[in-house]
């Protein structure tokens, strides 16, 4: 048998946001005259789905359907300040800012509706479908559209809100490093199964079973996108990628997608994902940032699986066929 199987496990955590520089983000929410809502931020969508997530967060907070929310991102003339999309902070920081802005807007909206229905705002709730009604009396209702029209044309009110979320900067102690670097942590455990070709040193990842704890899956299909794509990147980091294959020598660096190696569509393992939710008390509806962490656990899980399969430790990333083959020959010698 030239191909040997093994499996390995790894468990990790990951910080959401970084407080080591001060970590603010702002958001604005306002209603159009017909009761649609604009979220204005300067946060960036890299493909992770920031625009959609902020839309759902805003809709949930306002109590309207998400189709009625439009997110306008990253125009510095209109969007208030955001540090940027990095450090798993986007959903958490911008999400919290949007909640704050949407709450303020919702407050005005309910005040106008309360005047229209001649009740107290405390007696009102939203049905999430575009209506505001008296608690326990769904028939005593006014639509969000009528409320917005009234606010704008009759009551002279602006249904809008300003949101700010700031995690103050934490300065590490120069003596012992005491600090508060993050506000919450996501978690993961991966079990990887690999097959190693002992004659060539090539590794095929057969399966990845990933368990991720991400606070709250705000949009499960989008979480899945991140986690599956991230697991692929983990495999890629583990056994393919580097800009300097002969590090620390700087020779033979890859300059294109032929030379910069990543798993192709024919290199895919069975990747499965299970999500646990332990909501973050300070997260937007409990959410943490899952997008960065998901690449991390597969890497050591694969390294440990290679050891399980063929008894060699590769302590230098990436675990190329050459490193494995040299190690195997070292074992024989």
């Amino acid at each position, binding site marked *: 048998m030239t191909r040997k199987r093994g499996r390995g496990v790894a468990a*990790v955590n*990951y910080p959401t946001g970084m407080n080591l520089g001060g970590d603010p983000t702002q958001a604005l929410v306002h209603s159009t005259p017909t009761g649609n809502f604009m979220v204005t931020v300067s946060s960036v969508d890299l493909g992770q789905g920031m625009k959609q997530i902020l839309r*759902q967060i805003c809709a949930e907070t306002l109590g309207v359907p998400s189709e009625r929310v439009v997110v306008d991102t990253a125009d510095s003339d209109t969007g208030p300040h955001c540090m940027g999309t990095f450090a798993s902070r986007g959903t958490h920081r911008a999400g919290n800012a949007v909640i704050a802005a949407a709450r303020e807007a919702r407050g005005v909206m309910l005040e106008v509706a309360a005047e229209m229905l001649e009740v107290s705002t405390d007696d009102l709730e939203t049905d999430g479908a575009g209506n505001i009604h008296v608690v326990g009396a769904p028939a005593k209702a006014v639509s969000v559209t009528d409320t917005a029209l009234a606010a704008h044309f009759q009551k002279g009110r602006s249904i809008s809100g300003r949101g700010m979320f700031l995690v103050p900067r934490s300065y590490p102690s120069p003596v012992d490093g005491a600090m508060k670097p993050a506000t919450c942590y996501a978690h993961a455990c991966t079990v990887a199964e690999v097959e190693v070709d002992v004659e060539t040193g090539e590794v095929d990842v057969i399966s990845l079973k990933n368990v991720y704890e991400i606070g709250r899956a705000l949009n499960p299909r989008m979480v899945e996108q991140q986690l599956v794509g991230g697991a692929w990147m983990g495999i890629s980091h583990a056994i393919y990628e580097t800009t300097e294959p002969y590090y620390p020598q700087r020779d033979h660096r890859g300059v294109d997608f032929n030379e910069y190696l990543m798993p192709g569509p024919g290199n895919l393992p069975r990747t499965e994902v299970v999500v646990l939710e332990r909501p973050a008390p300070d997260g937007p509806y409990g959410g943490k940032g899952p997008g960065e962490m998901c690449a991390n656990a597969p890497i050591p899980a694969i390294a440990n699986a290679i050891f399980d399969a063929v008894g060699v430790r590769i302590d230098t990333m990436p675990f190329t066929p050459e490193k494995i083959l040299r190690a195997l020959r070292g074992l024989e010698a």
Partner: protein
Amino acid sequence: MEIRKKYFADERNDDLKEIGQSRQRSDALGHVKGITPFYADRAIPGLLHIRMVRSPHHHARILGIDASRAERHPGVRRVITARDVPHNVYTVLSLINIGPEDEPVLAFDKVRWQGEPIVCIVADSERAAYEAAQLVQIAYEELPAVFDVEEALKPGAPLVNEYHGQNYYRYDSGESRKVILGDVEKGFAEADFILEQRYQASPIEQAPTETTGCVVVPDQNNRFTCYTGTQAVFFTLDNSSVILQVPGQQLHFVGGTAGGGFGGKVDCTTEPIAILASMLTGRPVSYIYNRYEEMQISSPRAAERIYLKDGVMKDGRIVARQVRCYVDSGAYSRHTPYGTQKAAAHFPGPYTIPNVRIDCYCVYTNRTPSSAMRGFGVTIGDFALEVQMDKLARLIGMDPLEFRFVNAYRDGDMKAHHQPTEGAALIECMQEAAEWADWPVDPRCMAMSSREPRRQP
């Protein structure tokens, strides 16, 4: 994907209407129709193009620059060198008071890495810019270079970056960011076994399919609109404002839609020079990295070398962990002093260890400056930590997963950086993984909870 709701059920409310729903992405329709507006997706008449003359050397003194032939080349509108940049030496983190300024927008006295930009050609076409770039003559005196993080820290190593004065970033804690809990030497003395290992990773490129870049259009009222793929709009705007010495209100950044980033688009390498080119020519200018530049010029994830030393008891408890982590910043700081500090905060991983000593070094070498990437400061550390955990388990003859259960952090446990653990869920992830992957562990592990305080031994 499945959501297993049996864990922490009492901490979650399920009466939400939008949260937890798999709504279609608002950008999906634009994606499949090919009309999502990325920064380059605007038809702009009269657009000029930038190509950069870059250093062929890893480390060299610049003796002279002759761009006269390039300036006369047909189609060239402007040649920009360091003296045209109002505030040429900068560092991105100066915005959060992390200095010193240590990187030139365009190199002038020295080049410190192969590929460092020196002369910027602004031309009517990419072709003309490439042609002119090849006409620029630069005289160099090559200097010895250093590529290894530990070599760079040895006495007598070539000095990479004079703005630091030594080949490491000096924190207020000294040559490394230190995290200390308990007494690591005491821990090693008590331990039944000690294991010291070395781990390493080489640089990794974010490799988004859309390359880094921007398109700048002169606007009315002496403003400049910059369409950009940056991950950090205001960070880039504010840095551009510093470099160009113009008030921020003169700059209008439009972005928010990037063709992948993965941390690769947090630097501020294209916007300031493109805005400057637009200011100097009065024309719209694009500066878009070609694929070679994306792969080898844009900042990669830093290489790291990590030494882990652990003291472990026969019963599985880790009683001491010492970490020495050398992060290869390349020739300049960019975000790496911050990532190195993030690494220091992350060690010793999600485990409760009473005696910890961490030293994370941000080291300068003559390679492409490194910066953020997905998992910044953590990914390689996790690789080292979790391989080490596997080795330790085997060293004491314990199942690797059980070994992690024994040490997994729980709510209330003191972390190395002196914060009590909150919201832990490592144990539950491992329980689910054990059950799902049919990885047998001792029933006492399956009975553990992140919410139950650890019994002190």
